[in-house]
């Protein structure tokens, strides 16, 4: 059970960092293309 919490935390941390960056990058790019 404890393992699952750490595994989930690691995958979510990576998704938040990379996904968050990708999200803001696409927003900035959409604005710049206009």
């Amino acid at each position, binding site marked *: 059970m*404890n393992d699952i919490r750490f595994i989930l935390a690691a995958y979510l*941390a990576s998704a938040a960092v990379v996904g968050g960056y990708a999200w803001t990058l696409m927003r900035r790019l959409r604005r*710049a293309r206009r």
Partner: protein
Amino acid sequence: MTESALPLPRASAPQSPRVGPIAAVLAIPTLALGLYLALVWAPADAQMGNIQRIMYVHFPSWIATALAYTTAFVASILYLLRRRPAFDALALAGVEVGAVFNLSGILTGSIWGRPTWGVWWTWDPRLTTTAIMLIIFVGYLLLRSFIEDPDARARTSAIVAVVGFVDLPIVYFSVRWWRTLHQMQSSPATVDAHMVVALRVMMIAATLIAIALIAYRYELARLEANAEQAMP
């Protein structure tokens, strides 16, 4: 055909706009398959148990980091040799994406460290050199925002990227050169075949995501440079 009918040269236009979408489209099913293999299909580690599954997101983060920083290093050298703004834009894209995966690698490693080593962080040579690497390249990004002249900014940041890149081989060899808590590089020959397959698929997914992000960031950098030039 008259000369005026030929397309005008657009030296500063974004190049290869298809790389981003193609890599992004390929990354989605690869990542979905990779996550299934990593979290369901691959067996639990004999000693660490399920916690070892963090490896499938931790190690690919570092592959993407190395790819992005190497892109920035090569682009920076090319900029210093040729002085073409496209190489400066590619270097910026490589550094920014590299720093994102660098942070992902440190965070996933830290979360893996707590249940296995008992600490979230320790000043072990491998961990310290990765932290220094992140600081160097965040410094690169800060430096860019301080210099207004585009040529001076590109030249100075290219030098910082080339010098900063020296840390990457130090990170790689740190586990061999010094006594570290972090393990040495594993050999696929000594790892369960299922784990190797899951790891390879996640590495391909991370590589595709990094390529897509670098391509999109490059396009943004070119658009920003064009807008900067157009300003009075």
